[in-house]
């Protein structure tokens, strides 16, 4: 089922153009990786997908319906967004933070507790139970926020397709938690969830993404499978760097070696 469809999308929330002519198509179960240098418009694209910015040209269809026509609550039941930076400054316990992810749903306390238990296991936050969010380390906070957005779109009895938007979810995570997250993302995708992920770790993107979008200055520089986008030539054009692209010995996917 088609979850997300962008046709020639442009946005200019503050007058000047942030994104120009973006075309993306994502089905349920697919993972899209977004790469690009700082200020390329990766976060703006996620915000546009989330309905924060209106489009100035083109169309965004989410589950077949124009994104502007979605009511906030219905959209939140099918789409979760993990922001790059979290400013939560009040002493919630981590359970309370994760439970906020269930705000748009009215599935009842029992179902919510089951989901909380599962997302805590999926993010290894069980051991943080009862702790106060503001006293956690950066990586721990990131895992709690991940658990919150997982809880929001966690598969339940309804067979509705869902979309998860992640802005640099791995930036603060150690290697084992990165792998745990990748494992969970793949599981979510297997259950029909579409995922859009911004990251600077190309090898991580290469390992999970079905499609990759490379952005530079708000424009779409490349879009396709990992082996089509992660090439020496595109890295030179998008990032103005010289990299070696090899092949992962186990997965056969591209392996980007810089320096």
């Amino acid at each position, binding site marked *: 089922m088609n979850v997300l469809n962008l046709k020639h999308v442009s946005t200019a929330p503050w007058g000047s153009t942030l994104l120009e002519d973006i075309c993306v198509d994502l089905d349920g179960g697919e993972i899209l990786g977004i790469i690009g240098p700082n200020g390329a418009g990766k976060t703006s694209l996620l915000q546009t997908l989330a309905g924060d910015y209106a489009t100035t040209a083109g169309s965004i269809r989410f589950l077949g319906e124009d994104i502007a026509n979605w009511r906030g609550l219905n959209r939140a039941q099918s789409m979760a967004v993990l922001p790059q930076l*979290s400013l939560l400054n009040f002493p919630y316990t981590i359970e309370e933070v994760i439970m906020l992810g269930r*705000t748009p749903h009215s599935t009842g306390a029992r179902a919510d507790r089951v989901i909380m238990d599962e997302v805590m296991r999926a993010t290894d936050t069980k051991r943080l139970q009862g702790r106060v969010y503001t006293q956690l380390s950066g990586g721990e906070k990131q895992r709690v926020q991940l658990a919150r957005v997982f809880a929001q779109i966690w598969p339940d009895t309804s067979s509705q397709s869902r979309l998860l938007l992640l802005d640099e979810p791995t930036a603060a995570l150690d290697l084992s938690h990165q792998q745990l997250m990748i494992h969970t993302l793949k599981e979510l995708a297997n259950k029909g969830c579409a995922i859009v992920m911004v990251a600077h770790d190309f090898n991580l993107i290469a390992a999970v993404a079905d499609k990759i979008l490379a952005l530079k200055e708000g424009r779409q520089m490349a879009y396709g499978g990992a082996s089509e986008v992660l090439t020496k030539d595109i890295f030179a054009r998008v990032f103005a760097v010289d990299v070696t692209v090899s092949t992962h010995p186990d997965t056969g996917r591209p392996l980007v070696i810089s320096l």
Partner: protein
Amino acid sequence: MTLTRSNMQPGRLILILLIALPAIMLFALGSGAVPLSYSEVLTGFTQTLGGKTDSQAAIIVGQIRLPRVLLAAIVGAILASSGAAMQGLFRNPLADPSLIGVTAGASLGASIMIVISGSMVAGFTGLALVSVGAFIGGLLSVLLVYRLATSPNGTSVATMLLAGIAITALAGSLGNLLEFYADNEKLRRISLWRMGGLDGADYPRLLIGCVVGGSVLFALPRFSLALNALLLGESEARHLGIDVARVKFGLIVCVAIGVGTAVALAGTIAFVGLIVPHMVRMITGPDHRALLPAAALAGACLLVLADTTARLVLAPTELPVGVVTAIIGVPFFISLLRKRHHYGMQ
């Protein structure tokens, strides 16, 4: 490891406060220039309910203390729950209900009324006029702050905070200008009004307080889930399906009307709106479903206690209650500032 949250269940705190509030009110009814025993208070109370108003206890309890104690409870509840809501909306633990300009605007409105009304309205009508002036002044300045912070892109709480500071400063200096031109008697009335006091309490005021305060206290908890999500950030709340613009507007209206009324009825009472939500949050955590009702109850308890203290300390003379809340509040607030990292806020 520092303990930042007590282990008390929120429901238990609310239960304790529900028991404490009537007890404190009973104590307040018995205290004053003429001390009454609990049995005398109860006698006076039942006589008042029965319409018998000739005994001394019935007059003291029914006519003087009961409206005052109840008004203190309502005003305290409005201020504390409004403060909790503002801290949530602004995601700023140092926010208080006066932040959106309502208190300063109300002060200015009251000062204008005191100065222009002159000596002709010293009694009841004068008090009523001053209250109306305060209420209108408070609402007008919130309206101005809200308009200043609203652009086609929505209402920015950061701009609202700054606009609130600007309007507060403007209203303050206009108020000073009025004081400059006021004669001694008016000057005294202005400054007494600013210190806050519940000595004007009577049944008509109590009725207004109950109607407005009751609706505000009923409306605010409806925003609990939205406020919980808003603590994450505005766009996060939107992504959780909250209609942020509607919630912002609704909260500002509730707080403006509630605090505008509270200030009109009792003058500016410092620190209740700032400190009570903090005290409660330390026990219940930031979940507004528990915080808002618990803060309302705790605010009622604190203001009744503070008003009783104000009546007792220099009896038969009364201190302005704003002085008492500030004297209790400031040391607590300073200790809060010093311990903020323990409390779990950066």
